[in-house]
């Protein structure tokens, strides 16, 4: 089984071809870890690059991520048996007062595609819910999203609440969304800024010291 075929199927968003390809690869005794690292992860990396280059748009990213998840679902129990750990754990959510979820969902899908475990706490997430999620899940990274200038300040309140709860040093904070700027992110004391989903993966890897 050619892992390139799986990689191509992910990029083309062909979930059925990914499912068949992964099954064939496993039957051919290719390890789950190899399929993940040599086919699925680089495929999503390529999808992110095409998005950043303006060759892919949101629908193409979504169907690629859906195809990737089809493969991941087949591999997950085998990876657990092998003791393969995710490259990091991330809690993501859209800040209080903000119901937008497309950008946040894309970030989650792209992080999964890069090998992260993603806990999505949803939209319109209160400060308390973010803090509780960090306490409960102990993620390496908290990713917050905002699409409105009026809701952006809520991210600052979450960061302050994390500090008050003694959690700030235990988690990196990434903030993004259409109106968010790098300067605003620095001002509120977040660790990183990402303008889009593909950039969020790169930044998450940087912050956690994950190498490709």
């Amino acid at each position, binding site marked *: 089984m050619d892992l390139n075929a799986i990689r191509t199927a992910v990029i083309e968003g062909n979930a059925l071809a990914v499912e068949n390809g992964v099954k064939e690869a496993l039957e051919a005794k290719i390890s789950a870890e190899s399929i993940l690292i040599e086919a699925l992860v680089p495929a999503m990396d390529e999808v992110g690059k095409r998005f950043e280059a303006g060759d892919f748009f949101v*629908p193409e990213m*979504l169907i690629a991520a859906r195809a990737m998840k089809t493969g991941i679902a087949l591999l997950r129990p085998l990876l657990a048996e092998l003791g393969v750990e995710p490259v990091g754990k991330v809690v993501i959510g859209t800040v209080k*007062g903000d119901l937008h979820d497309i950008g946040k969902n894309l970030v989650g899908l792209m992080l999964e595609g890069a090998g992260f475990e993603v806990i999505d706490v949803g939209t319109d997430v209160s400060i308390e819910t973010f803090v509780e999620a960090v306490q409960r899940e102990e993620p390496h990274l908290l990713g917050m999203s905002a699409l409105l*200038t009026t809701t952006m300040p809520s991210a600052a309140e979450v960061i302050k609440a994390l500090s008050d709860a003694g959690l700030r040093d235990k988690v990196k904070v990434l903030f993004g969304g*259409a109106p968010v700027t790098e300067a605003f992110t620095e001002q509120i004391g977040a660790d990183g800024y990402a303008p889009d989903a593909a950039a969020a993966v790169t930044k998450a890897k940087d912050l956690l010291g994950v190498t490709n």
Partner: protein
Amino acid sequence: MSINLNFTDEDWQRIERDWTAWWAGELDRPMVMMETFNPLIFGSKKIFSKDWMLEKPVDEVLDIFQERLEDAHYFGDAWPKFFYNHGPGMGAGFLGANVHSMPEQNTIWFDFEEQAPIEKLHLTYDPDNIWWQRIYNLTKGAVERWGDKVAVAHTDIGGNLDILASFRTTNQLLYDVCDSQEEVVRLSNEITAAWIRYYNELYDVIKQGGRGTSNWAAVWSPQRTYMTQSDFCYMISPEMFEKFVAPDLEACYEIMDHGFYHLDGKGQIIHLDRLLEMENLAGIQWIPGAGQPLPEEWTDLLKRIIEGGKRCQVYVTAEGARKIVREIGGKGFALYVINRMKPEEAADFLKVLAAEDISQH
């Protein structure tokens, strides 16, 4: 009921004369609008309450608006307008989506409980829809009350894929445009047919007032105008725009004299060339989006719009308007100046703008 506006019949004659010349390309200056209140902001929290949206008698709603209209002053090329803000894309409500008001968050949103297969979804005009009835009655009541004193605007009907997203959810529609392209085209066509009917039926009421047409944006026409939109196209490729959005827009512009497009955010700029090709599209409104540089900073983009043969509408500060007339020239622009000014300040500002406008020198 009579209305006492700070706006005379002579003012209306001036508005009709100058806007007509502007559309015809016969005016070397921009249209410049200033008001003492912002109709996009005023009272919207109250308006988005359920009581206001559906239950308050039409006359009581109009009483409140009348107070504001009588209190307002209009400078430059601004005109008295009644735009009843029922939120973005009420066409979804007209077609049967659930309408959820969120007055504290200053908005409304739509959903649809039946998540049936896309093949089973059919969207058709329903004359008895409560939201359509409400908007129709408010529009009719306003025209009957104010006649030719106030321009009654079309409500915000919405863009075709934005309306469809209210039924499918935005997330699902993003999959649909890949998985079920023919069904998306079919539904877009159904929405467009209904949209044109809503526009025309409201137009038949509005034209009785004899003060042209307008909409939520700062554009007025003695004939038929509207600010079309497609927020969904921020997320899709030019190929998908061509397949799903362009046919709808062109169908809408065919029934208008002065169709306008709401270009919202840098993600939509990739569609600008296609928009400029649309023969019946008269103008493009540029909204940079939250967190982005102000409209006047997008000089190359504004030039592309004007040099592409379209009118251009932007919301700007007084300084922003001056930058545009100095660097590009005001001809072809409709500049809504967001600063609040006293009458003498507005008059002085218009003189400064005229002196600096390279289109006029």
